[in-house]
């Protein structure tokens, strides 16, 4: 494995129990360290299955997954210490305050004491949530919850951050704060793996993309080059050209 590869996927296949068709069918790709990688595709294409397998939540039916040089099959604990996950759902406890939620998640990563408290407060301040730290998350707006959800994924300074549609349903201001912070995190050396249906956001954010459909990667590379190669004007046009206009439900 290359020393610059944060993630290497080789012949990954996932067939769910009771399903004859593979959700992901023999895909291979490499995500370079320090990149912002966009895994794009329509609904049911295999994005969430791929991300779930990379996070150690699903066992591959076939293939090998390596993160930071560790094989996932045998060294998942080491990998889990170094990855952060921001799920699409607001995975927070609504009756706990923002601070209590983050302290619980920090503790789960082994962080504790005043250094954790300081870390939480710094992140809350950065995301404009300091004055809401003692309020219950259930009282927050969608954008505020999304920002807390993101902090929960980066509190332990992971080397790889997985984001599953991190800006879905938020206002422009919150989205701006989130994407700006993702750029900052990336500049600090963090590899970011990102899925989204917002093609404009993906085009601006990602320096590498792969488009997955029907469980197979149909194209991968740098977004600007791919747009140029396929003679499209933007990523959305490229996406529709590759995946078609037929509705996916």
């Amino acid at each position: 494995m290359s020393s610059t590869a944060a993630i290497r996927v080789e012949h990954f296949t996932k067939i769910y129990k009771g399903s004859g068709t593979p959700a992901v069918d023999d895909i291979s790709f490499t995500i370079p360290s320090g990149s912002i990688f966009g895994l794009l595709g329509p609904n049911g294409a295999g994005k969430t299955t791929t991300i779930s397998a990379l996070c150690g939540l699903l066992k591959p039916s076939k293939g090998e997954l390596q993160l930071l040089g560790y094989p996932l099959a045998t060294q998942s604990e080491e990998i889990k210490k170094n990855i952060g996950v921001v799920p699409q759902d607001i995975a927070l406890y609504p009756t706990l305050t923002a601070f209590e939620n983050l302290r619980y998640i920090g503790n789960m990563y082994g962080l504790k004491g005043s250094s954790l408290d300081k870390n939480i407060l710094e992140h809350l301040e950065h995301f404009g949530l300091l004055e809401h730290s003692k309020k219950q998350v259930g009282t927050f707006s969608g954008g505020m919850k999304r920002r807390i959800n993101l902090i929960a994924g980066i509190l332990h300074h992971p080397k790889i951050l997985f984001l599953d549609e991190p800006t879905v349903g938020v206002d422009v201001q919150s989205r701006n704060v989130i994407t700006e912070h993702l750029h900052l995190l990336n500049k600090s050396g963090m590899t970011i793996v990102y899925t989204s249906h917002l093609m404009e956001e993906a085009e601006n954010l990602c320096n590498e993309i792969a488009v997955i459909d029907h469980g197979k990667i149909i194209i991968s590379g740098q977004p600007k080059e791919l747009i140029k190669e396929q003679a499209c004007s933007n990523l959305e046009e490229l996406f529709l050209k590759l995946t078609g206009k037929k509705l996916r439900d």
Partner: protein
Amino acid sequence: MLRLTSTIRKELLILLRDRGGLAILFLMPMAMITLMALIQDAPFRDYQELKIPLLLSNRDTSTLGKTIEEGLRSAKIFEITKTGQPESSIKQSVKGGDYEIGIVIPENATTILNSKVNAFVNAKLSAAGLSDSLKAAPAAPGELSLLIFFAPDTKKSFKISILSTLKQFTSKLETQTLLDYFSKELNREGTLSGKENKIDELVSFKEMNTVETPQEMLQLNSVQHNVPAWTIFGMFFIVISMAGSIIKERDDGSYTRILSMPGSYITVMAGKITAYLFICMIQCLLMLMVGIYLLPLLGLPALVIGHSVSAIILVAVCCGLAATGYGILVGTLFKTHQQSSTFGAVSVVILAALGGIWVPVYVMPESIRILSGLSPLYWALSAFHKIFLGGGSFMAVLPYALKLLAFFGFTVGAAWLFNKTKNK
């Protein structure tokens, strides 16, 4: 350890901020204990001091009528009302539920008995060749039958018991009459002296105490039954809360987030179990305090908890673990909170009914009693009864505690297996 303690703290914070959930977990069982203890106080007393209403028409003025009547009164289990009503009225009164039993002792019953005995004795002596000169007294016409009416819903076992009690009264009199006649006839032959022939009881029954301490003398009353019963029910109602918490974490992505973190999920589950077990222990303590301090203020007897605190703690902890284990299983098997709460509530009510929470198991039909033995609530209640009524020790309740622990192991194991299979 940090993962465990932070999970416990998180779960407790969530539970404490859920006011509706707290009301279900604490106020509902407290209200149930108070209400059920008050409602069932009278039936429990009735059961312990049961008097069977009996309508007696004694038309015989001689020995047989008097003996049966005295026997019924001395039994102290009947509330006797004497009547001179005809048989048809007695039948109607019993059928209508005014009385459990109706007895008619026919007119001249003693005379008929004496005639029958006289004829029997003479026949036997003649057959034995003791005297040819003896003349048989004329037998009274017809049979001597005491009429007994039972209420339509009277159980067979109860009928047998009453009939054997009555038979006991008449048998002694029959024997005494027979002996008197034999003596009289033999005296006439000069075979026996003229001494009185009173029958002594050749076999007597002596009731022996099976209890050794005043604690063991306690009888099951409304408080002694309802306080432990509804405490266990309340503890098991934590199933709804716990299953809901598991489903919510699964639905909102927290479960996924936790699985993506380093460390074993078992630690997280252990934290959850510990937090809910802590709530169960507080529930148990509060409910017992209601029994000891609140119920006497309402005119009910105070709960007597025995002398083995360690046994109470053992049963409470094992019962709490059984309840939380069941909560984990329900939360794992069902997909939505609605499904889990409906199934959780209904299944706990069924297990409670089988386990003798509503009414004691000993008044249930035999077939249901067999099923009762499968309910963890029955094991817990039996263990509490053993401590509270029988003065049971730690060792005495250990078999029940082990059954509850086995149930906990089974439920958690089944949930783990289900999750493992599902996530393949």
